[in-house]
């Protein structure tokens, strides 16, 4: 009753002093000095993810058992969660607020669970039909190219995808070994992407050699180059050429292709990146005693931390602060290698301390196989003539992938140098979005980014300390015996245990606290949201204080 009851004569009054109306006429909102309002913010995990997956949202959907929607949420930013859920270096987790409280959410493991569910449920992938009047060419079937093709096709633009190899996947196929990413999984991922829309695949075609870039520019309305880094960098040491010394990438290509390899009794792997780790662990699995030699220390190794730890657990040995100096041969046959002892000097442009030679100090090691994994280079045959390059990489805009040529875009390792799967995916998606904007003539949405929350914004009273849920795995002893996948994935119980740990930073997850604690019954609980009734909110701000996740903010009245 919004109207106050007023008795004009005593006759109108009840015989006993009895209530006849409620208090809704009393608009206590007028007492308020400060106004609370729902104000969802950015979760830091999302900021940490190079392709900006809406991590908070999909974890929340998991807690509500809404798996398909959770999977779709990822797909909006990353078409291959089953891949990244296995191989990503997960910077999201380094940014996770919960990491500052106890242990970060195992986002990567949750992503993998959803990715695998997507593969088990092919029906979840919407099928796009060609509707656009423009078409695009994508060069390279690695993560960057697949991602770009996926988002263009999803928007209805037909894509022709050119790939040098006989199969798609790029490094995912010929670089990353099966114990981390099984070929069967990759096949399903690739198939799901290709089947999702108007994508025509042309394998065995090397653009720049078999077909010119200018021809593609003429035939298509946009061209995306996601050609990666296909060439191993040479070590530039005496004795490098000849039997027993092999680029790590070529060794991995054989292993991943199912070819028989013989890494000898004693193998030395030179380098400190993911390639070095994968070569070492593959050689170990093929029966070799393996030592990784790196010219800086473990702290500077660019490989993913977990990979280094796994390699060590499996029995790979490490020698740090040593750079190859000379490869020793006896009658042409590999005999060993001499390393120059190094020490760390001043930081270089990458911020890592530069290794410098310790004069006169060398070490000699026996070896019957040496694998170089000191870095990869782009193969720009027929490409560097057409687009501007720098340091043997393609020059392109970071945010959009646009090169100096209007219709040509590029992204992934060929632009950034050796980076990561997720960064390649992000580059492919961003280029696709830019291309679509050009095709449609629509401008970029100029929405302001919401503020990012941190640990100080979380009301930790509502969370007790818990351990991260580790992903189940086969024991190290068994892992090193073969190429079977090491990590076996969460079951439903583990998935929920970990998803339930998420703070849901800055975004309401319907915990009800604000509604429960409002002394003025001024918060309305609707179907899918809460609403503050400012007619009655007195501005006590209990809701703001008791929201565990800072999904409300305050504003002074009259300002």
């Amino acid at each position: 009753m919004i109207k106050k009851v007023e008795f004009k004569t005593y006759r109108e009054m009840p015989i006993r002093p009895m209530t006849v109306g409620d208090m809704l006429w009393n608009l206590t909102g007028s007492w308020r000095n400060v106004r609370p309002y729902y104000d969802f913010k950015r979760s830091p995990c999302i900021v940490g993810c190079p392709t900006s997956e809406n991590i908070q949202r999909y974890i929340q959907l998991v807690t509500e058992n809404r798996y398909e929607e959770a999977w779709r949420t990822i797909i909006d930013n990353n078409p291959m969660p089953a891949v990244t859920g296995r191989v990503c270096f997960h910077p999201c987790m380094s940014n996770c607020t919960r990491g500052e409280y106890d242990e970060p959410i195992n986002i990567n493991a949750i992503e993998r669970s959803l990715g695998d569910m997507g593969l088990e449920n092919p029906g979840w992938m919407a099928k796009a039909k060609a509707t656009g009047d423009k078409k695009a060419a994508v060069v390279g079937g690695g993560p960057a190219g697949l991602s770009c093709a996926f988002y263009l096709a999803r928007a209805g633009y037909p894509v022709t995808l050119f790939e040098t190899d006989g199969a798609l996947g790029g490094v995912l196929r010929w670089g990353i070994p099966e114990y981390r990413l099984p070929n069967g999984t990759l096949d399903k991922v690739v198939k799901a992407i290709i089947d999702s829309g108007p994508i025509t695949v042309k394998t065995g075609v090397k653009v720049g050699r078999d077909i010119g870039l200018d021809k593609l520019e003429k035939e298509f309305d946009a061209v995306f180059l996601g050609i990666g880094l296909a060439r191993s960098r040479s070590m530039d040491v005496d004795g490098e050429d000849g039997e027993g010394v092999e680029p790590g990438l070529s060794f991995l290509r054989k292993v991943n292709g199912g070819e028989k390899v013989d890494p000898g009794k004693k193998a030395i792997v030179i380098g400190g990146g993911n390639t070095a780790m994968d070569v070492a662990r593959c050689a170990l699995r093929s029966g070799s005693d393996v030592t990784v030699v790196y010219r800086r220390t473990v702290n500077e190794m660019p490989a993913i931390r977990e990979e280094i730890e796994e390699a060590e657990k499996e029995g790979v040995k490490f020698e740090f602060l040593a750079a190859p100096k000379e490869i020793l041969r006896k009658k042409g046959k590999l005999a060993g290698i001499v390393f120059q002892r190094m020490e760390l000097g001043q930081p270089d442009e990458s911020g890592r301390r530069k290794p410098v030679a310790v004069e006169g100090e060398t070490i000699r090691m026996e070896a019957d196989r040496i694998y170089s994994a000191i870095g990869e280079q782009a193969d720009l045959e027929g490409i560097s003539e057409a687009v501007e390059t720098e340091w043997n990489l393609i020059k392109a805009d970071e945010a959009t992938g646009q090169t100096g040529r209007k219709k040509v875009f590029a992204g992934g390792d060929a632009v950034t140098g050796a980076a990561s799967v997720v960064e390649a995916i992000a580059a492919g998606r961003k280029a696709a979005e830019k291309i679509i904007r050009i095709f449609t003539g629509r401008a970029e949405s100029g929405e302001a980014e919401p503020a990012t929350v941190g640990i100080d914004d979380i009301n930790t009273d509502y969370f007790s300390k818990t351990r991260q849920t580790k992903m189940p795995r086969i024991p190290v002893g068994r892992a090193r015996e073969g190429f079977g996948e090491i990590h076996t994935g969460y079951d439903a119980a583990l998935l929920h245990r970990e998803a339930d740990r998420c703070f849901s930073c800055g975004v309401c997850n319907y915990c009800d606290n604000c509604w429960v604690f409002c002394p003025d019954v001024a918060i309305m609980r609707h179907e899918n949201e809460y609403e503050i009734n400012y007619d009655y909110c007195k501005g006590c701000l209990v809701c703001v204080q008791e929201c565990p996740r800072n999904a409300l903010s305050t504003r002074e009245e009259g300002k």
Partner: protein
Amino acid sequence: MKPATMPTEELMGSGHLACQGCGATQAMRFALKALGPDTALVIPACCWAVIDGSFPHSCIDLPIYHTAFETAAVVASGLKAGLEMRGDTKTTVMAWAGDGGTFDIGLQSLSGAAERNDDFIYVCYDNEAYMNTGIQRSSSTPVGAWTTTTPVTNYKREPKKNMIDIMAAHSIPYIATASTAYPHDFMRKIAKANTFRGTKYIQIFAPCPTGWKLAPELSVKMARLAVTSKMYPLLEITDHGQKLEVWKDFEPTPIAEYMKAQGRFRHLSDAEIAGIEKDVEAKWERLLAKERMLASIPGL
């Protein structure tokens, strides 16, 4: 959206006259959600006699009998007897009084009703002073607190009265403490109380930002810290005073965090707070010892 964590029906509405962040008001809303519409209330003089509205209005959509300061329990006895005489055995009668009306002036009528084991729920919302008349001390006011009758130069030296032990001595079927920071626990206790016949006593810690010189938004936080600092243990006494269960599953917090947020304790030195902390710790240990002792008596 997930299912609601408490009943969505509102028997207490907006527009009421409580201050910003009033714990007593939250407590009422929770209690009514736990009991549902088949409930009649008895409210003596206290803030709640004002909060619900001015005649002829009330923010509560249930019958309320407003009564004299010292008579909550006895009016509840009479109301229940009257209902039963008219054949109504299912309406729950709930007396709802402040700490002044319970620990002090209403104690005799409560003791009488409890001794007769009259059938109603008695809730004391404990804001630790006579708030409605301007923050005078009650026997529930904790040691160290400022009130208008215990000014900072002469702050309260006497410890809070142990009302729970007094009620336990009456051998009533159910006694519990609660806190507005744990609404689901409180609602569970109210619903549980309603399953017993006889006098049930629940005392809920209900912060009063106005009387405690506390920022209103910290109301629930204080209700939580009171429990986690062991100042206000959450317990249940069943089997007519013979079984005691104390809630211990929380991360303990320092008493200073609780006291320093409230203006009513601002005059206390760190040493005085440390002294209070020692007392609280000793009381807590005695309470746990009692819990163990009662549990060790054979046949219980």
